[in-house]
């Protein structure tokens, strides 16, 4: 079957097939069932993130390369086992001393700009935030045929938060767009379009019992239930409250360059 998937009579330039709107942006999908994508074992997604928009953290079943077509912003990659190397600023400490708020710690966040490529290993969760004043547009290539993916070749997104609505909307759109199209004997089903009932909660915490989450997070069940985001209709790109991610201040580009230079000097020495 795999050999037959690359017997293409004709290639076409393709536009996205589906479009899903969220509170602070749009996600457009190219249908991964298309024979060109089936041949290459990839899926492609384009996300447009409005200013002050935050993509909810998620991970994929294959590695991804993300190209920043337009805009600037901040991204975070959540690598298990890595230390929380960043702390809130001095100002945050002073505020803490004044009893206003405590200091946060987290893993490194990075600034990105137009022209950047961001590499994301399979199974590594990530988020990104548009702190500029024009929309961020990113195109992501999802390599489902990579050996790092041991599931089937359907692209899958596992959300850690929120209640993304993509699947249901995509299914409706793809059913319409696929009417009349030749489907051949392909057994694979487009992941995003799979029907799974009318479930209203679909981040990974939703499948756990609140009591189990409470035990695992050492929380009361009411707080644990908040992880499930039951009635959240914002989609996968949400607007940040208050107009800014206050505690997140990645190093400026200049600082990053200096850091890189120091690293190179160190390597040379």
């Amino acid at each position, binding site marked *: 079957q795999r050999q037959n998937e690359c017997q293409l009579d004709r290639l076409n330039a393709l536009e996205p097939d589906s479009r899903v709107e969220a509170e602070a942006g749009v996600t457009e999908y190219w249908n991964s069932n298309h024979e060109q994508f089936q041949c290459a074992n990839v899926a492609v997604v384009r996300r447009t993130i409005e200013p002050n928009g935050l993509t909810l953290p998620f991970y994929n079943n294959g590695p991804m390369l993300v190209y920043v077509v337009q805009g600037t912003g901040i991204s975070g990659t959540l690598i298990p086992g890595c230390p929380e190397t960043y702390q809130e600023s001095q100002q945050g400490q002073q505020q803490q001393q004044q009893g206003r708020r405590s200091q946060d710690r987290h893993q490194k966040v990075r600034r990105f700009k137009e022209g950047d490529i961001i590499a994301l290993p399979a199974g590594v969760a990530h988020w990104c935030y548009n702190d500029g004043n024009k929309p961020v547009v990113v195109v992501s290539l999802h390599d489902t045929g990579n050996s790092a993916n041991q599931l089937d070749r359907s692209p899958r997104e596992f959300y850690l938060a929120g209640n993304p609505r993509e699947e249901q909307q995509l299914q409706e759109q793809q059913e319409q767009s696929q009417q009349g199209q030749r489907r051949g004997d392909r057994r694979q089903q487009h992941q995003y379009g799979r029907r799974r009932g009318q479930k209203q909660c679909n981040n990974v915490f939703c499948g*756990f019992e609140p009591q189990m989450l409470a035990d695992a997070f050492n929380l009361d069940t009411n707080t644990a239930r908040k992880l499930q985001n039951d009635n959240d209709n914002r989609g996968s790109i949400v607007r940040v409250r208050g107009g800014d991610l206050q505690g997140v201040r990645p190093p400026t580009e200049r600082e990053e360059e200096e850091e890189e230079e120091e690293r190179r000097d160190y390597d040379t020495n």
Partner: protein
Amino acid sequence: GLEETLCSMRLRENLGNPRADIYTPQAGRISTLNSHNLPILRWLQLSAERGVLYNNGVMVPHWNMNAHSIMYVIRGSARVQVVDNYGQSVFDDTVRRGQILTVPQHYAVVKRAEAEGFEWISFKTNDNAMISPLSGRTSAIRAMPEDVLANAFRISRDDARRIKFNVRETTLTSSASRSQRRAEA
């Protein structure tokens, strides 16, 4: 060169003894065997994990980043929940001695031992299988800034802080002492 490499390779390692790579006195222990401590596993592209959970011990929610996990229950029983990419529970039941449960790559899973504790061996389809925990000191949640958490879950910064920092352990924790504390409070 076979006699210098393959023939002399170590083929055996004991995972049953109580040496552990991860140990939490209240919750249990986990030992792992991968191609770092048994190099032939690099050829086999397989690894293993041996776990022991005491009564009410919890292996925190996590996903397998680069492998499927096939778990065989050696002793005791545990409540296990597995969740797919739709946030849908695909397994929520008690597993008992002699049973096997397959947890596909990337699916989220949590285990809580029942009264008699729980022991298992998991075979993983990668010679350096890695997990990504969702709670605890090395978790993805802990790695996120509080503001990102607060906005992603629509919660207060106080709640975000509790979610991030309330569990200090990594991988293994216990619900028993907390239930007791809650009861006392």
